[in-house]
């Protein structure tokens, strides 16, 4: 047995950690590249969204490298992506690829996959007692690595707008993240996290700057994966903006486990409540939260909001229409970026540059 998982954001780091620690063989899909997208787009319905195509591409590449078990999160309707695990399954079967599929259910606990599924019954036969005994430790390792990655990414978002040498933070972040990836024990992880934190903090910074504050909202895979959003977070940071986002793997995992920490719950509840002035009910996925977060960020004194969505994403298309109103009502500039297969990096750069300049003018005028 060889498990694999999508290559999204830092997900491969902590998924790999779980498998590695539990001594389950695994295949990390190659880093998302143009080839990944080409493969994914070739085998999927043309009108389906970009995250779907990229995830499918990851799976195809991993299966070609010898993986035989795919682990994927299912999140359920109304977002189409919630049902994508089912569609992807059919596509991969049609392609004649042989594999086993494990869906992590959105509203159940991790243990559920070990108890409730036909597939897991079979899996149990293949897993040794050692694997099963080590699994809880693997989960702990994975969780810790995920939190370490997120801590480093959050720190990088603060350092980037103040860096003296453009691009320096990103280089250091990459180095720090690969350190996390390589750590084998919890103690090594602690040390490597400390080293990574120091590495980022030691970036030469200009503390006299007062960076713009920009929140990134929108569809969660698009917000979390730099391959899907063409590095919007890094680009904004290097243009001199301190970026915030509330979509993290931990946010969404805790949410599905219904084990949100009080502050995270209250933050998402706050966003949801704020959206009620515009939406009478829950549209699904992140739609209400995108709208609510824009309002809350305006109240918190942010300079602007960047709204990310894949082309044809239903919940976020709804959000984008409402966000134009929110922008006017709350006097906060909102830039919606629609992402699809085309190489529109240049275009994104143009839009972000103009947006940041506009925010700077607005700040000066105030």
């Amino acid at each position, binding site marked *: 047995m060889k498990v694999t998982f999508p290559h999204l954001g830092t997900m491969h780091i902590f998924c790999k950690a779980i498998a590695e620690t539990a001594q389950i063989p695994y295949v990390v899909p190659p880093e998302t*590249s143009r080839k990944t997208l080409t493969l994914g787009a070739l085998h999927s319905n043309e009108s389906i969204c970009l995250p779907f195509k990229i995830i499918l591409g990851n799976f195809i590449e991993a299966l070609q490298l010898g993986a035989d078990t795919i682990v994927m999160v299912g999140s359920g309707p109304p977002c189409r992506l919630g049902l994508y695990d089912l569609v992807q399954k059919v596509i991969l079967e049609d392609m004649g690829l042989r594999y086993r599929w494990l869906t992590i259910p959105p509203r159940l606990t991790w243990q559920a996959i070990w108890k409730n599924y036909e597939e897991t019954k079979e899996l149990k036969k293949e897993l040794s007692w050692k694997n099963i005994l080590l699994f809880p430790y693997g989960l702990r390792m994975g969780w810790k690595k995920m939190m370490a990655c997120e801590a480093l990414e959050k720190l990088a978002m603060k350092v980037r707008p103040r860096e003296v040498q453009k691009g320096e933070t990103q280089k250091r972040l990459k180095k720090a993240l690969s350190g996390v990836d390589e750590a084998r024990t919890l103690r090594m992880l602690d040390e490597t996290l400390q080293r990574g934190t120091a590495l980022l903090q030691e970036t030469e910074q200009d503390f006299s700057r007062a960076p713009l504050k920009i929140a990134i909202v929108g569809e969660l895979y698009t917000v979390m994966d730099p391959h899907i959003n063409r590095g919007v977070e890094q680009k904004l940071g290097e243009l001199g903006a301190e970026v915030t986002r509330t979509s993290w793997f931990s946010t969404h995992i805790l949410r599905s486990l219904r084990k949100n920490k009080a502050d995270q719950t209250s933050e998402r509840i706050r966003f949801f409540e704020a959206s009620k002035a515009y939406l009478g009910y829950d549209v699904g996925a992140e739609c209400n939260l995108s709208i609510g977060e824009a309002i809350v960020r305006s109240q918190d004194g942010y300079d602007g909001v960047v709204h990310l969505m894949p082309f044809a994403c239903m919940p976020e298309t709804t959000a984008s*229409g409402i966000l*134009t109103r929110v922008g006017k009502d709350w006097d906060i500039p909102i830039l919606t*970026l629609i992402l699809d297969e085309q190489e*529109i990096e240049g275009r994104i750069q143009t*839009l972000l540059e*103009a947006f940041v300049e*506009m925010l700077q*003018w*607005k700040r000066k005028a105030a």
Partner: protein
Amino acid sequence: MALYLGIDVGSITAKMVVIDEGDGVLAEVYLRNNGRPLETIQQGLEILSSRLGEKASIDGVATTGSARHLAAYLVGADLIKNEITAHSIAVIDLFPEAKTIFEIGGQDSKVIVLRAGVVVDFAMNTVCAAGTGSFLDQQAARLGISIEEFGRLAMQAKHPVRVAGRCTVFAETDMIHKQQIGHSVEDIVGGLCDSLVNNYLNNVCRGKELLSPIVFQGGVAANGGIRKALEKELETDLIIPKHFGLMGAIGAAKLVKRVKPVRTQFKGFELSRKSCSTRGFECSECENQCEVVELLVDREVVACWGDLCEKYRKSSGLITG
């Protein structure tokens, strides 16, 4: 007298202007790229230098447009600016009272909302180029008429036909259908203008407050049919600046004039006599599969980009460390 050069290299055309301290346009060039931006820029430089005379020396250069980085590497720019800002700056100085800018170019269409001389909102088409100049170009070519004639014909339409404008591929299907059942070319071309304008107003300008005075610029502003359709739809007159096609370049030149570089990076007009080319390849050293591009002037690599790891830039000695 100090002179400033603004270069705007878009998807279809390259625009260059030289302005003086008083913002007067001393020389201008408007050329089609024909898919070869480097040659076009060189050609533009040659024309400019012949208009300005041998002795003219440039004190600052700024580039804008979708090929602004390529242009900057080639000519040696002091400032690289996105086209949204460049267009706004050009308008704000010229028409301080303007509240909206429509800019429709070859592949881009933008709307910029101004209030009290400051940009407060903007939008640009992202995933779809429907309704921009290149489609009009293509249709003119299909009908065997020049793009100038296209605008004139559209204005003569008596009963513009309905053309689906959401997607240009379907718009073309619609136009061919109308032609095969006997509608006149004028009415079809007029209908196309109406539908492109609707598409622009509904997609790019959606949710934007379009107050007049509205300035309409970009290459498509030359098209009388589109201008008429916009004015009809919005029930207001549009201001078309004298240099409507050069506004991006003018904005860029004005921006570099403000910066007043101590010593310009400009490589001089003699660049037009050198051999310039690019060389692109896909690096297969890692899974990033970067598409690397090298810029060569007189067979020497003067710039390189696309390599995420900076390996090629380092080996060419373009960056150290």
